[in-house]
């Protein structure tokens, strides 16, 4: 990924922008398809964390946990409870 960012930052920008769009329009199956079977989605508590496995993380998802996040759950009454809209902030990326 680091190589991709330094060699083709535009391509990475387009990929991330597309990902954000798919989430905005709730196209979750297509969003999932952006991830490979061995994907790891990591958001550490400490930005300087060295190793995902030994750190306390906000998110450390494998592919099946990513699927959990967008799994259709609940019934119609539950869906009436979804009042909010997600707010996404997409600022910068760098190696």
């Amino acid at each position, binding site marked *: 990924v680091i190589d991709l960012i330094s060699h083709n930052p535009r391509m990475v920008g387009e990929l991330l922008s597309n990902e954000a769009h798919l989430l905005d329009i709730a196209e979750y199956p297509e969003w999932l398809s952006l991830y490979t079977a061995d994907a790891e989605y990591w958001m550490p*508590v400490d930005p300087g964390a060295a190793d995902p496995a*030994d*750190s*306390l993380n906000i998110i450390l998802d494998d592919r099946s946990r990513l699927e959990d996040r967008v799994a259709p*759950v609940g019934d119609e009454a539950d869906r009436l409870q979804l009042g909010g809209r997600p707010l996404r902030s997409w600022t910068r990326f760098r190696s």
Partner: protein
Amino acid sequence: MTPVSFDGRSLDSSCYQDQALFDLEMERVFRASWVYVGHETDVGQVGDFATVEIGTTPCILVRADDGSLQVLRNRCPHRGTTVCQVPNGNVKRFRCQYHGWTFDTRGRTVGVTFPEAYSQEALSAKNLMPLPKVESYRGFVFASFNPMVPSLSDHLGPAAGYLDRYVDHCGQRALRTTPDAHMSTYPGNWKLQMENGVDGYHANFTHASFFDIMAKRTGKRSRYITASGGGETFDLGNGHVVLDQSQVASSALLDRLMTLPGYADAQKGVDGLDSPEVNRLLAAIPGPGFNLAIYPNLQLIGIQVREIVPLSVTSTLVRVRPLLLAEGPAVINRLRLRYHEMFYGPAGFGQPDDFEMFARISAGLAGNCRDRTWFDRGVKESNPAPDDGIRPPEKGQLTDELPQRGQYREWLRRMSNSPATEDGAMA
């Protein structure tokens, strides 16, 4: 002050919104008694410190140069500036950046810029005001502003037995906290989280999506809460309460482990451990199976240490971190981290749902219509109110609101600064 009451069954809802009452809580609930300030492993070495709070007052827990644990005010005695701005670290001295005064790890002023203009007397009483009471119980450190507070062991009472079970849930193996914590704030009063951590009634609805996901992943029924199907609540006195799900939830909690990466491999064996020990440590990952709330700001839930920090009358910070083996195979600690992350933290599958309910309560109470909030589930008709206003019925069913009643009896006792009267009115 606004008259408020807890009558044994319901609470004046303004206690979640009233500024004057909140200020009184900081004095009578937080500064007058013991407050949890950290785990000894947070400050293991001389000079290790962590910034903490007593209610809304910023303090510093520090391992002093003589090895003692000190809790200092995070406030320069000169003009009031906070002297420490970071959550943790290791220091020899604290320094106020405003005029350069320095303080040692016992809070003594050791350097004053251009001191000639001060008399010895003028400086003698100026220091970081170490709190008069700091005691720990099995690694859990508590402090108080109040020099007359009863001993920590009197304060904990029978809750100490639950702390023991919590500390011993991995047999003889010592535990430590993670250096990092999940920190989240919600727009609501601090008492909402105190109630919720021992609420056996909410999970089926509030956490419906998590139960659905677990059922899908494990192929097993994941809801374990029923109207009367086991589990118990206890009022231990002094506001300390327990929600014990160990009988009813343990198999559902163990099923959740199956969704953790690395769990199946660990079941086959862990280097350096015999197989019964592997099984014991894996079975201990969900913790001892009860939720213990130590009044007013500590909850031990599963393997988690949760600190509840009031920020304002309608804003609260919650700091959670899992306990790990102090020494032991990384494989086990990784599973403990993943188990915690699954439900907790800003992107966990459970904690944000509770926060959403707290936000909705704050929204529902807007306008301060002096409504009542009810905690009467499971009140026994034969024993509608405690006769002496203090001793409650001690044991209830899992979904009873007995823990919340225990908390509010203590809240009322402290706020009244005298034993509650029979109808629960403020003295």
